[in-house]
């Protein structure tokens, strides 16, 4: 694999406000980068309005002069021959024998694949997993391997529906394997066994089939640096005992950030579990990186900067806004559910988990990392229609929270974009909408628990077990298409680091005051009002930054005055063994 060298965008100090008027919109680009460099634009008086996500709708907003707007990098070119690249990776693995060298007739092979949470949105066919599975299954057949099962590594995510699986693996594999030899993982299954505990007492559990098998092949799609690596197996194929070792408010609060695995205590914990997995079973890891080409066809204009919109783009955008404005909410959700992303594979590696992941991360950062100098007092982020947890569904208020404080806040390396105690403005209607099929426990979590307490530790200690044991939620998770009963807790914990860091969160365009109150947010009628509200608690002439995402980016924020938190700054991992393995038994906090 060759490494594609990209220009590294960076910023300069904030420029002075414009003093001259010009007929055409002008942009000033830091470092004089070409038109679309994934860099930074400072708005001027004549800058065009910005397209801001607003759930399953958009807003067109004029930003104050001198607002820093951060754009993602342009999509890297896809591999010209992905199938050849996959074969090359299988035959030239990292720190491992080639796949064919591990195969022998009569062996028991399990293949695990990432679920529907990757990539976002669902990609145009053929899905990368289909490409890899086709090649791997052919190789297994060539070597006389017939005992093969494919597990969709859902962990506590919802089970994928048959038509979603068909789209993911392709017609041929689906017809041959579904549903007996291609199925969703079940974290509540009795066929899940503990393989041991780490030196920090974190339990590791896997499906019996995997433990008793001769080889586990994991097929990954890496959308963000948080994904992949040891997390694929140790989390994707785990049960509650293993997941709660890191999916708890204590560990989540110590992640700085999720997108920077070296500074994430969750990844530390997962790595310890992964080490034990790799010592116990033979894992052949296949990872892929994709570019950020989220929109194609009629929506490709959404990949552009507003400065580069032509008349046709503006016409399409305004037509789309008009159409969406006339639709009921459910119809809008249905329309966005149909979007398929033209993602392309930009790298594929195979072999030993950590060695592979290192290569993947390097490529992922090449695609996503954007250098930013200096933190912001006020950040503006549009909340899109999608998150990993609402594919073909609604972005409910708890998911808005995790998108804002969990994902968008954590899209950084180094230091967070927003200063400690600063303000995040999110653009979203924040309505009281839930999908009762996919998110039944979210409804109770939001309406019953959050009004009682927003404290993650109290929620964890007093209520998590109750939801974990709820037979309705278990049934809906195991046989329906619902997220696990404790999933909303995890989503709340994911927001913990962001919650601790942010001073205020203001929702521009909020339609429901009660939703904002329950989340601890402040409603504003529109972005202008939100910015004025944010200025109340910001320093004079605040630094305002808009993150123009998605497509996804990762901010390399440098601020000489702020020292990034290091692993040594963390507290000790949460030890469940000392509490008899029962979360309710944890005392002394919350």
């Amino acid at each position: 694999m060759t490494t594609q060298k990209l220009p590294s965008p960076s910023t300069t100090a904030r420029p002075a406000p414009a003093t001259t008027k010009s007929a055409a919109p002008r942009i000033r680009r830091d470092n004089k980068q070409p038109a679309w460099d994934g860099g930074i634009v400072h708005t001027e008086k004549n800058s065009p309005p910005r397209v801001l996500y607003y759930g399953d709708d958009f807003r067109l907003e004029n930003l104050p002069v001198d607002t820093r707007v951060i754009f993602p990098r342009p999509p890297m070119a896809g591999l010209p021959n992905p199938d050849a690249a996959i074969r090359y990776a299988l035959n030239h693995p990292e720190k491992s024998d080639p796949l064919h060298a591990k195969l022998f007739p009569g062996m028991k092979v399990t293949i695990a694949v990432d679920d529907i949470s990757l990539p976002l949105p669902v990609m145009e066919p053929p899905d990368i997993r289909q490409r890899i599975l086709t090649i791997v299954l052919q190789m297994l057949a060539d070597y006389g391997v017939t005992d093969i099962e494919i597990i969709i590594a859902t962990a506590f995510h919802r089970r994928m529906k048959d038509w979603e699986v068909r789209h993911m693996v392709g017609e041929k594999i689906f017809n041959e394997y579904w549903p007996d030899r291609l199925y969703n993982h079940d974290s509540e299954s009795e066929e899940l066994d503990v393989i041991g505990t780490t030196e920090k007492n974190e339990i590791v559990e896997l499906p019996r089939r995997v433990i008793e098998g001769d080889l586990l092949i994991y097929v990954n799609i890496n959308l963000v640096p948080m994904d992949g690596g040891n997390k694929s197996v140790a989390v994707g194929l785990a049960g509650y005992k293993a997941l709660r070792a890191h999916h708890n408010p204590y560990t989540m609060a110590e992640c700085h950030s999720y997108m920077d695995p070296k500074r994430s205590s969750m990844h530390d914990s997962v790595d310890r579990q992964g080490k034990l997995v790799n010592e116990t079973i033979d894992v052949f890891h296949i990872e892929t990186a994709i570019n950020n080409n989220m929109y194609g066809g009629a929506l490709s204009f959404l990949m552009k900067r507003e400065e580069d919109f032509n008349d046709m783009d503006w016409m399409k955008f305004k037509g789309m806004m008009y159409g969406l404005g006339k639709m009921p909410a459910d119809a809008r959700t249905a329309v966005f559910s149909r979007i398929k992303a033209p993602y392309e594979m930009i790298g594929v590696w195979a072999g030993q988990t950590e060695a592979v992941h290192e290569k993947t991360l390097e490529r992922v950062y090449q695609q996503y990392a954007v250098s930013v100098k200096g933190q912001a007092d006020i950040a503006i982020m549009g909340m899109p229609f999608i998150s990993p947890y609402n594919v073909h569904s609604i972005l409910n208020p708890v998911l808005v929270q995790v998108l804002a404080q969990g994902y968008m806040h954590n899209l950084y390396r180094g230091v967070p974009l927003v200063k400690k105690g600063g303000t995040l403005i999110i653009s979203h209607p924040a309505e009281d909408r839930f999908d009762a099929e996919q998110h039944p426990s979210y409804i109770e979590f939001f309406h019953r628990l959050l009004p009682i307490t927003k404290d993650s530790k109290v929620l964890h200690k007093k209520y998590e077990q109750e939801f974990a044991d709820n037979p309705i939620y278990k049934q809906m998770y195991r046989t329906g298409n619902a997220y696990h009963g404790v999933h909303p807790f995890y989503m709340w914990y994911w927001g913990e680091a962001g919650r601790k860091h942010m001073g205020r969160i203001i929702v521009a365009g909020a339609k429901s005051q009660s939703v904002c109150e329950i989340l601890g947010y402040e409603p504003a009628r529109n972005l202008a009002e939100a910015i004025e509200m944010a200025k109340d608690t910001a320093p004079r002439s605040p630094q305002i930054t808009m993150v123009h995402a998605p497509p996804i980016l990762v901010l390399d924020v440098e601020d000489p005055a702020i020292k990034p938190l290091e692993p040594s700054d963390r507290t000790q991992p949460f030890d469940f063994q000392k509490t008899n393995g029962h979360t309710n038994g944890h005392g002394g906090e919350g």
Partner: protein
Amino acid sequence: MNRACFFDVDGTLTRTSLMSAMGYYLMNQTNPLFSAFRIAKELVRSPQLAVAEVLDRGLFNEKLFMAFAGMSEDRLHVVGDEVVDRVMVPNLFKGARGLIEECRKSNMTPVLISGSLDILVKKLGARLGVFEDDCFGNRLEFLRNVATGRVLPPILAGPAKAALIRRLATERNYDLNQCFAYSDDTADAPMLSVVGHPAAVNPKPRLRAMAQSQRWPIIELG
């Protein structure tokens, strides 16, 4: 405080209805002539039953159970075993046993509350591992071991199921806020409303709409 899961049976745990069991009883009388006579009689009464079902579920049960008039208690038990093994158990929804098992795993008592004959509910309960004391159905009145066709009050339907749950809660120290209830029909809305964790199971359209508006979980047992 203790906790319990209350299950409606027909339509919730099984695909059968009250009519399925009744049909089996009618078709298995002591001789074919009796069967033909009884079935004909019920066909004549069917408009009455249809109206009763629309008006009031309790009234429907009362009218339906009149068909048992003249059957001996022994026969009801013997044929009841067949009804359960040949009609009800084969028609259990795929996830029904799992749902009851999950309830047990969570240290809750599974309780069956049905408008069916108590004889059938207890027999089905035995097949599902539910204790006899936790199975409730409608009780027929017997005179010298022969059913009179009347149902002993209270007729277990609609609000009476909710009343039974409240009574059980008092007697057995159940914390209703922590109890669960499962049903498929709006007739059981009172039973669902009385507990802290109601769920609509394979709901009929009206209950589905109600569950959606009340944000009760909807389970498809398949």
